[in-house]
C-alpha cells in the first residue's frame, strides 16, 4: 500500500511551548500534510506561532493535562474524517511539542504501521535519561507486561502512530500522563498488533514530563484498569 502524505495527521499537544513549537511543526510538515496542535491553556503565544506555521489549532481555555489534550486532537480528526470515504487509510501520529521527538522518524513509523495496528516509539534507557525515570519506566513496563501481556520497551514515550479506524478501541479516559499506559492497556485488551521504533533519548533543560508522583499514579491506575477492563 502506498503511503500518501495526505493520509497522515500529526497531533501535537502543547502547553507553553512557544520556544519549540515552530520548529516541531516546520520539521513535521515535510512528512505530513495536516498538523493539529492542541494548545492546553498556554499562557504564552504557542497557539499564534502554531497558526502562523499553518497548523490547525485547537485551544483549551483551561489546562487539562496531556491525556485530555490528545483526546481533543484525536476526537477532532475522528470527526473531521468521519465522512471521508478513505478514512480507513488515515493514520495518526502523536508527537510531543517540546522537541523530544524527531519528526524525521515519521516515515519510519508510518512504514512500520503498514502491517501493524499501532506503533510505539521506544527510547534507549541510557544515561541521557535520569536514573529515577529509568528505574520507574522499567518498573511500569514490567507491570504492564504482567497485567496486559503487552511487551513494550518504553511504555511512557508519547511518540506513537496508529490507524484512525482503531482510535475507538484505544481511546483512553485518563486526563494526565497515565494516558500512555492506558493506551497500552487498551491495546492488550483488544489484542491489537503492535510494533516498536527506536527513537533517540532527548531531555531538554525545561523537562515537563512524568514526575515520581505521576509514576505512582500511573502504577495505581494500571491496577485499576486491570480490574475495570476484565
Amino acid at each position, binding site marked *: 500500500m502506498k503511503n500518501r502524505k495526505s493520509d497522515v495527521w500529526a497531533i501535537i499537544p502543547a502547553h507553553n511551548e512557544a520556544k519549540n513549537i515552530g520548529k516541531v511543526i516546520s520539521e513535521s510538515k515535510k512528512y505530513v500534510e495536516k498538523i493539529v496542535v*492542541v494548545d492546553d491553556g498556554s499562557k504564552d503565544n504557542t497557539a499564534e506561532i502554531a497558526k502562523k506555521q499553518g497548523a*490547525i*489549532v*485547537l*485551544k*483549551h*481555555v*483551561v489546562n*487539562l493535562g496531556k491525556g*485530555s489534550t490528545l*483526546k*481533543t486532537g484525536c*476526537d*477532532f480528526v475522528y*470527526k473531521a474524517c468521519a465522512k471521508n470515504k478513505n478514512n480507513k487509510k488515515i493514520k495518526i501520529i502523536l508527537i510531543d511539542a517540546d522537541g523530544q521527538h524527531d519528526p524525521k522518524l515519521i516515515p519510519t513509523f508510518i512504514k512500520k504501521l503498514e502491517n501493524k495496528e499501532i506503533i510505539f516509539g521506544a527510547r534507549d534507557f541510557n544515561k541521557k535519561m535520569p536514573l529515577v525515570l529509568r528505574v520507574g519506566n522499567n518498573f511500569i513496563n514490567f507491570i504492564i507486561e504482567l497485567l496486559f501481556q503487552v511487551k513494550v520497551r518504553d511504555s511512557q514515550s508519547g511518540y506513537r502512530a496508529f490507524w484512525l479506524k482503531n482510535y475507538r478501541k484505544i481511546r483512553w479516559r485518563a*486526563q494526565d500522563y497515565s494516558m500512555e499506559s492506558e493506551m497500552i492497556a487498551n491495546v492488550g485488551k483488544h489484542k491489537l498488533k503492535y510494533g516498536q521504533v527506536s527513537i533517540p533519548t532527548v531531555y531538554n533543560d525545561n523537562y515537563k514530563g512524568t514526575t515520581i508522583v505521576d509514576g505512582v499514579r500511573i502504577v495505581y491506575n494500571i491496577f485499576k484498569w486491570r480490574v475495570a477492563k476484565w
Partner: protein
Amino acid sequence: MVNDAMGIQGIQIIGMFFCIVMLYLTFLHYKRKEFKVEFFLFWAFAWIGLIIMILYPTSLDFFVRGLKFGRRLDFFIVFGSFFILVLQYYNYIIINNTRRKVEKITRKIAIQNHNRKN
C-alpha cells in the same frame, strides 16, 4: 453537667473553639451566598450539635455504653472517622464528575471555536 467533677476540660475548650470557628465560617459562606439555606442549616445544626455534645458529654453515655466503647473520646474518634470517610468519598465523586464535565466542555469549546473560524 459540663464535666462531672473537674469543671470544663482543655479538650472541651479546644473542641468548642473549633466548632465556633466552623460555625462562623459556615455563616460567612452563607452570607456570601455560596451556600443554599438548606446547606447552611445542615452545617449549622451539625456544629451546634457538636457543641452540645462537647458541653454535655454524658448525653452520649447511652450510645457509648450501648455500643460498648471504653471512653466517650473513643466514640467521638470512631464516628468522626466514619463521617470524614463519607465526606471524602462524596467529595471524590463530586470532583471526578466535575473534572469530566470541565473536560467535555473545554473540548467542545476548542472544536467549536475552530469550526466557527473556518
